[in-house]
């Protein structure tokens, strides 16, 4: 009995001292080199064999072979950066939505943003004529997806606009209903489309960074930076909202306006990402939870940490998607879903075990 008790208590104090070591600053300082390392090393993975020295040569000098230079600068670098921006952006968007809805299950696609985007894409493919359109019109395809997301977001805000302030639950239900509505619209359109279009759309809805190009990075990057600044600046308001609307109002937060601002910003960010990389699940849900397990949400560095961790995670998911099968790519959405759900279940199991002790 005694030894067991001692063991548990020493174990507990070890965990505590370990936990006290993980401060936001330590985490941030650890994540910075990890991010730089990931972004550079990720460039060496892919069909063409380019090792780290060759890749560094192409990045930092102009003495690399033209082919290597082209692969690095035109293909892998925008792709890796897109993965990073998508991971960071989805994680931030998840953090915003979980906070303003006070719902731990909220994710960036909560309000039918991805299904709205899917409708946009499916309609575009259906009207532009088959899979040929997908190959040729990457930009218009993204525009169609973005437009679809904006439509779903606007409908949601109109539907729940009047009750916005007081009833988060109504908004959540409206979002779920909208998702179903748009999914149904997608299914109907797909049902009457040709099989090639269906497979192309299916691949797109599972997410991929293969279509990345420099020009497509601009909008998501700008929105990501804006979101990061806003979240850092309004971290106190975010924390206040976690204790309930009523309490936040008594602390001088204009809850209705603040929530609207956060919803619009997170929706725009998600829509811009869905438009270029498709629907990638679980990152926006998982990353904020992992960060909150380690540090407090109210710290000023938390948004940065969430963004970096999401970005690094996604860069490696993209690497896996490239190297998992030779000559073929696995959609990233499948990997995030797989890795994410297994990780999450393990975590919940561990926490429950801990709770039982």
């Amino acid at each position, binding site marked *: 009995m005694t030894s067991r008790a001692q063991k548990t208590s020493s174990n507990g104090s070890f965990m505590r001292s370990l936990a006290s070591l993980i401060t936001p600053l330590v985490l941030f300082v650890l994540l910075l080199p990890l991010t730089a390392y990931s972004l550079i090393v990720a460039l060496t993975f892919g069909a063409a064999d380019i090792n780290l020295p060759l890749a560094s040569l192409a990045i930092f000098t102009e003495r690399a072979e033209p082919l290597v230079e082209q692969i690095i600068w035109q293909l892998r670098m925008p792709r890796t950066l897109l993965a990073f921006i998508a991971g960071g952006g989805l994680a931030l968007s998840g953090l915003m939505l979980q906070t303003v809805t006070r719902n731990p299950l909220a994710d960036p696609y909560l309000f039918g943003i991805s299904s709205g985007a899917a409708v946009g894409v499916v309609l575009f493919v259906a009207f532009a004529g088959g899979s040929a359109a997908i190959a040729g019109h990457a930009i218009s395809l993204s525009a169609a997806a973005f437009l679809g997301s904006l439509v779903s977001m606007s409908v949601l805000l109109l539907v729940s606009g009047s009750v916005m302030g007081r009833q988060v639950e109504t908004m959540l239900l409206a979002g779920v209903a909208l998702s179903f509505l748009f999914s149904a619209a997608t299914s109907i359109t797909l049902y009457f489309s040709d099989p090639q279009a269906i497979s192309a759309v299916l691949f797109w809805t599972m997410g991929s960074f293969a279509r990345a190009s420099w020009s497509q990075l601009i909008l998501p990057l700008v929105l990501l930076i804006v979101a990061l600044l806003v979240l850092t600046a309004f971290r106190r308001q975010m924390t206040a909202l976690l204790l309930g609307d009523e*309490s936040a*109002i008594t602390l001088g937060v204009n809850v209705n306006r603040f929530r609207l601002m956060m919803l619009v910003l997170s929706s725009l960010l998600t829509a811009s990402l869905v438009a270029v990389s498709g629907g990638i699940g679980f990152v926006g849900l998982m990353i904020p939870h992992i960060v909150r397990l380690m540090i407090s*949400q109210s710290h000023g560095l938390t948004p940065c940490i969430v963004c970096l961790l999401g970005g690094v995670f996604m860069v490696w998911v993209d690497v896996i998607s490239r190297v998992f099968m030779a000559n073929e790519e696995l959609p990233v959405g499948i990997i995030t879903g797989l890795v994410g759900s297994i990780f999450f279940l393990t975590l919940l199991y561990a926490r429950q075990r801990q709770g039982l002790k």
Partner: protein
Amino acid sequence: MVRVSIVHTTASTSLDSAPILSVEQLYWHANEKAILQDISFSIAEGEFVGLLGPNGAGKSTLLRCIYRFLSPSSGNVFFQGKNIWQYRQKDYAKALAVVLQESPAHFNLSVTDVVGLGLLPKSSVWHRTSKEEIIQINAALEQVAMLDKREQAFEQLSGGEKQRVLIARAIVQQPKLLVMDEPTSHLDVKYQIQIMELAKSLGITVLASFHDLNLASAMCDNLLILDNGQLVANGAPRKVLTTDMLSSVFDVCTEVNRHPQVDAPHITYYYGYRENGHD
């Protein structure tokens, strides 16, 4: 010299007697149904005022109209002579702090995080919490005897500890008026007394709703009794807490004596009376 001091005294008494909060002919309706009707009262600076009434009398609604969660259907609330809706939201939050009955807490906020929110009304967007402010937070935690738990998760605290943390948040907010909506319900007797004595020790004006009539009697300078959305009594505990009032408003049979320790009415309830069909 004497003159000056007389003038000074009159000035300060007139300031003291000016109410910090006054409610004038306040009505509030929910879907045509009047929840609050024609409520008028005022609170002087430094007073400790208790709001009493049976369940559903409108206590929380009245407090919500005062801390600007609800806007009245008609009538006004004035804080230091100015209509509360004419304050900027942040300025009003600097003057008035609120401790609510239950705070939902999610997502691993620490006790320090929650208390630190008291600085929110004063902080600009890019403000970093300064050393002085951390000292201020710790002092408030010390005052409510929660300093040793400052790193703990707020959601894992007991009900009484949570309330003490929320009072610490209110202390950091440095308000002129503290509003508390049944801060002692669901708490052990020990904590009910502790929370109220803590609020009283702050030395600011307090308006709190109570469930426990005896606790209210012992703590408050003045009591407001709400029944069915109407203010039925307003005055010192010894004037307000009568057997007649208790029977008509709270529907209980009682005997009112003096508390053996403090100079306040003490209520003894009688059991087994079912005259009005209640028990």
